[in-house]
């Protein structure tokens, strides 16, 4: 049995909106093991975003247990949460969130700037390696405006890899991309996953789920389904099946 990366037990999150209390998560339990590729699905209002924020240590649960890599997240201070995000989680966003007018390599270096244990030489070295891993070894000094959407998302993926996180957390990472490019990105995720990287992918697109090995479906703050995918599609194969673009 591989190592448990994420452990969640009876997790609840409520928001007070004026006089009303909104129950975004109503007691959820699951765990994610090392090397898994999990998609968290759900329509809007299902508690998906709240789940993502808590998983990403951007938010704290109201009650229940959340452990990441053996660390109990509840009751950690703002600064301690920042350190966990810095060392254990790699974020990927729908809109890439790259720093404008800043080169790819500097964007990738960003998380390491906030880690005083990493020297500037090591930082550069790791950033180059991460960019090579996502196939952008020849675009180190391009700024986001000089890169396509898919390439920008690759830079963002490199940025999420650079701190050697225990888990990559992707939020609708293909939402802004066309089908072809999103398949390319998914095949990159599958490749990374094969190398042993744990990935949690939050999405509302069902076809994305077919590329993962496990799917958790949320509805109204509860888990509707949590199933293993026995018929994992290869994004690379799907990409090959797409009609050729005549350009």
């Amino acid at each position, binding site marked *: 049995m591989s190592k448990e990366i994420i452990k969640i037990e009876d997790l609840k999150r409520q928001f007070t909106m004026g006089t009303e209390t909104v129950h975004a998560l109503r007691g959820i339990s699951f765990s994610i093991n090392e090397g898994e590729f999990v998609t968290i699905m759900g329509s809007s209002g299902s508690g998906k975003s709240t789940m993502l924020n808590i998983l990403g240590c951007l938010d704290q649960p109201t009650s229940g247990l959340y452990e990441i890599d053996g660390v109990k997240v509840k009751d950690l201070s703002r600064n301690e949460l*920042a350190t966990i*995000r810095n060392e254990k989680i790699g974020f990927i966003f729908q809109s890439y*969130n790259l720093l404008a007018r*800043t080169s790819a390599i500097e964007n990738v270096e960003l998380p390491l700037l906030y880690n005083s244990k990493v020297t500037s030489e090591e930082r550069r070295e790791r950033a180059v390696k991460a960019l090579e891993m996502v196939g952008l070894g020849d675009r180190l000094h391009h700024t986001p405006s000089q890169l396509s959407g898919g390439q920008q998302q690759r830079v963002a993926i490199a940025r999420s890899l650079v701190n050697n996180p225990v888990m990559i957390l992707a939020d609708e990472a293909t939402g802004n991309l066309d089908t072809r490019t999103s398949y390319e990105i998914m095949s990159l995720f599958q490749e990374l996953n094969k190398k042993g990287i744990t990935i949690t992918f939050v999405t509302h697109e069902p076809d994305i789920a077919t590329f993962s090995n496990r799917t958790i479906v949320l509805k109204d703050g509860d888990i509707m389904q949590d199933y293993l995918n026995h018929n994992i599609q290869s994004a690379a194969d799907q990409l090959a099946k797409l009609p050729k673009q005549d350009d």
Partner: protein
Amino acid sequence: MRLFNLFKIATKAIILNKTRTLLTMLGIIIGVASVIAMLAIGEGSKESIRTTISAMGSNMITIRPGADDRGPARGSGGDVQTLTLDDYNVIKEKATMLSYITPVVNGGGQVINGSNNWPSTIYGVNPEYLNIKVVDLQSGSMFTDAEVQSASKVALIGQTVVDNVFPDGREPVGQMIRFDNIPFKVIGVLEEKGENTFGQDQDDVVIAPYTTVQKRILAIDYLNQVMASAVSEDDAPEAVTQVTEILRSQHKLMDNEDDDFSVRSMEELISTFSSTSEMLTILLVAVASISLLIGGIGIMNIMYVSVKERTKEIGLRMAVGAKGADILMQFLIEAILISITGGVLGVILGLGATVFIEKFLNWPTSVALYSIIISFAVCAITGIFFGWYPARKASALDPITALRYE
């Protein structure tokens, strides 16, 4: 290490927004430059007043009849006859802090030489006068104590008088002139001193023994003033006290009575005039400080816009592990860098402006080191003060809200 990284991030942000940063800096640059230039003008005029007054004899002490506080219904000091030769003798005898002392009587009149005449002032003094006023002779010699005793009709004249009554360039020494209707033999010409700070021509004088002037010209037995010089400039205030005490006992004044004379040192005169120019300096600096303040507000404004504009960036930085303190420092460093760079440029511009004012406008200026230090410190403080609030606001952002901010 961490601070160094934040420093790098801040510099990068500044470089990415060159034009905006430069415009923001302009406020600080102009503020600092004007503070420095204004202080230089203020210091310069103060210094020039001090130099001119010192040239008149910085140890000089003048004793005049009549009290210093001339309220309504009091006669002017010159008309009062309470200062006598006895007073002079007592002071000369008892005051230990004085090196030279002379009685002074003076009056206006016409200097006549043949067909040339010129209105001037005659000063009746003793030979020590030259030491007190720090004046040398161009030619001839000073009269002697014996000539004072005998009330000889000898005189020394200043260059302005020479120019006007000896227009043909004849050597005046040895010639006879008349002051009003009294003939004087010219025995010396005073060294040229030019105008003093108050625009008075110091060369438009006739100097003669006080006995002669008292008896033959003015027909008085009192003195207009007594001039003395303190042993040194530092001893001047003490000499003033000493002379005051001597004169009070000489005039038999009770403790509750005011002085019926005034004793002033040059130092007091300097401070009177300095305080005027100090007022001017304060006014100038106040105006300049306002522009520095406006510069600071400019920084605050731009930092606010910057925080707002970069909310998403702040969210991202927080998501990848930046702590609140990191964000705070980043924006604070940015603000301080802007204000300090502005400060340096402002100092350079201010020094340039000072040189310009001195060279082309002929205003005396003097750059004080303290003005540079102060305006520089104000800059750094401005940066911290006006950068703090926006930076604080940035650091307190919630990463989730910041990330979703559009």
